[in-house]
């Protein structure tokens, strides 16, 4: 039974306010602290650097957000990224057209996502286990495929994706902003987005309300696979190297960005605006730790603690469960 009635009382809803803007404040706070501690932080080149660093994780996080909104999780993003880009890179090395290689790479990521989705909907394997399986299998296939050797010396027109600059803005930044924008439109303006929120909120009710739940589940993992592949292409284009161990641990950064961004693990609540801030926050933190010469040994610990703190704040200000 609920306590809320329709009467309007002019009370300030602190909780809702913090939920909505708490992340913005934490972000600003972090910026202020870092500017005070290091004069190098608030320089245009450094800020652009933060943005560029954030793009890879940002693109992966878009797919991850969509998956987590359905109440699922995709642990396989790092491995899917690796297999997709090594396949794409090797095609380019064979002299195949860049567009074709890029298409095959994106297709590989999407296909692996579809396999994840089918394992979950057809074989009824929980997302955590299904994508954990994919994490190992895709990594193993990558190592087999590359024989453990990195692929380098890629065509310049491909490398432009990672190194090009348009109107003063690096290509990776443009690409990831485009992915965020498309994702946002998809989630908030299309019926598929609405179906994802309904599915994540209550799968039983969603099915009874006519949501094609299995199809939507396959779709979100396919999107996640696609995003992972795209992020991988950007990364490889920038580094001019597709290492077989590329993308290891990326699931952690992506999940962290999503969760710090306020998307609920139980599904149905959150969105990409939060994830964008979450990804920026994590990268700013990384950058700050670098600038302050914090030992890389401490970096992981500090990052983990900050993420835990962010979650704790949400817990405090999230509505009580009924």
């Amino acid at each position, binding site marked *: *039974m*609920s*306590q*809320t*009635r*329709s*009467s*309007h*009382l002019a*009370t*300030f*809803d*602190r*909780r*809702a306010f913090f939920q909505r803007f708490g992340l913005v404040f934490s972000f600003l706070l972090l910026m202020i602290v870092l500017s005070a501690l290091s004069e190098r932080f608030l320089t245009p080149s450094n800020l652009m650097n933060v943005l560029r660093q954030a793009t890879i994780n940002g693109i992966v996080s878009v797919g991850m957000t969509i998956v987590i909104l359905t109440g699922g999780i995709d642990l396989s993003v790092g491995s899917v990224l690796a297999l997709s880009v090594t396949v794409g890179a090797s095609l380019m090395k064979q002299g195949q057209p860049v567009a074709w290689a890029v298409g095959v790479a994106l297709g590989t990521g999407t296909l692996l996502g579809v396999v994840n989705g089918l394992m979950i909907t057809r074989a009824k394997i929980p997302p955590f286990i299904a994508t954990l399986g994919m994490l190992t299998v895709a990594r193993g296939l990558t190592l087999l495929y590359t024989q453990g050797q990195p692929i380098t010396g890629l065509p310049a027109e491909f490398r432009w994706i990672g190194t090009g600059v348009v109107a003063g803005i690096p290509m990776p930044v443009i690409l990831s902003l485009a992915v965020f924008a498309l994702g946002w439109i998809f989630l908030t*303006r*299309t*019926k*598929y987005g*609405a*179906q994802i*929120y*309904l599915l994540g*909120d*209550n799968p*039983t*009710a*969603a*099915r*009874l*309300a*006519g*949501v*094609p739940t299995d199809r939507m589940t396959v779709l979100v993992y396919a999107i996640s696979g696609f995003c992972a592949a795209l992020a991988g292409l950007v990364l490889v284009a920038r580094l001019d190297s597709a290492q077989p161990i590329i993308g290891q641990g990326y699931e952690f950064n992506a999940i962290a960005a999503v969760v710090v961004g306020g998307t*609920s693990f139980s599904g*149905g*609540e959150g969105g990409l605006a939060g994830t964008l801030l979450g990804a920026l926050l994590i990268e700013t933190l990384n950058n700050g730790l670098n600038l302050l010469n914090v030992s890389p040994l401490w970096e992981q610990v500090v990052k983990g603690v900050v993420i835990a703190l962010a979650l704790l704040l949400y817990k405090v200000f999230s*509505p*009580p469960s*009924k």
Partner: protein
Amino acid sequence: MTEIAIPRLKLEHIYKSFPGVQAVSDVSLNVYGHQILALVGENGAGKSTLMNIVNGVVPLDSGKIYLDGQLVSIPSPRRALELGITMIHQELALIPELTVGQNIFLGREPRRWGIGVDWKRLYAQAQRELDRLGIEVSAQATIADLSIAQRQLVEIAKALSYNARLIALDEPTSSLTSRETDTLFRLVRSLREEGVALIYISHRLEEVFELADRIAVMRDGHLVAVGNASEFTPAEVVRLMVGRELAEFFPKVPAKRGEPVLKAVNLKAGREVRGVSLELHRGEIVGLAGLVGSGRTNVARLLFGADRLEGGEIWFEGRQVHLRSPQDAIRLGIGLVPEDRKAQGLFAGQSVRYNAGAGLIQRLSRWGFIRFQAVNRIVRELVERLRVRTPHLNQKVRNLSGGNQQKVIIARWLGLNPRVLILDEPTRGVDVGAKAEIHALMSELAAQGMAILMISSELPEILGVSDRILVMREGRIVAELSREEATQDRIMQAATGQL
């Protein structure tokens, strides 16, 4: 009943507000031992909040709580337990995977040599407690294997094992059959004899008058009346609850029966449905009665494509149809308001717009893009038409009261203009005001030519609303009664097989 000087629980000027709401306002109330106090009010009247305050679930803004004359503060449910206050919730708080005994002694298992649980002693003690209360359940049984009624009884046994002095029961009978209700009532009465103070929250006025010594009525956060049960009539209580006269409990507009829309022939699915045939016509409301577990809900789910048919045929407007999923049924124009609002109907964290428009946003789209203007217009109309009390369409539906949530789910279907609407327990846990509104709406829809199938465990509702009544028992339809020939006795006889 002798009046005891010091009340077990004394509430003085209790206030509690939530953002945007004054949930409890200046409530002063005494609850005595050896008495059953019925606390009634519409959903959202503040009953649950008041009980949550007493149980330490939510803190109060101001006011005083006395227990046996002592001023107490109850900052946590744990403290409430220590003080001997327990609440039996609508949503049961037992752990399904554990046994009855484990649940009763959860967190305070008897120990052997300080380590390891003394299982023998635990089960012996638990069984003794159950036997004493006349609860026919084995302490070693797993909760998941018990019926809802048995679980409730186990909760009460658990409460008593904490030496409860005050027990609040929140809608305990909403999912019980009448025989199970009798068992519960017997137990509640014997607790009264033992001196426990009982607070009984219910929407069912028959129960209130059968059980309660005193009645307290809440409305809009205020306590509007309290007194001995003998001083009230049911009509008065209803008037106090809703703050206006209700013309009739079940307003029924007679409708013309049109051509058949949906026909089921010899449906079969598992042990629950063993050959059910029925026909729904335009303009009629068919009541589907029967005991819980007789297969009513299964039939509804088959007609909606939610479960797989193992045999039989479904015909829609003269054509045989194969429903592989709810989507198929929705496309034809069949809607289902499911039995369990929370688990099967609501998207608790989503807005009223998405909940009422769940079907519309899927249907009203162009190239996948939702036509929000059209959706908003229709949802707004529906919210007004059904008088859903919500400040705006962006309100999360979990913040609405039960009756309003149910209206939102009904609105979801009305927006799609279905030919057939199946409602499974449409007014369970809904307050009297909203209940009458839902009934009125159903007969209005039938009058406009919709075919309605209503499942209900409440016989007065079945009798009041239906044009025709089907009674199910053990997976079969055992009786068909017209509105004129149906009585509570005849339905019960058919449902229990004493025909």
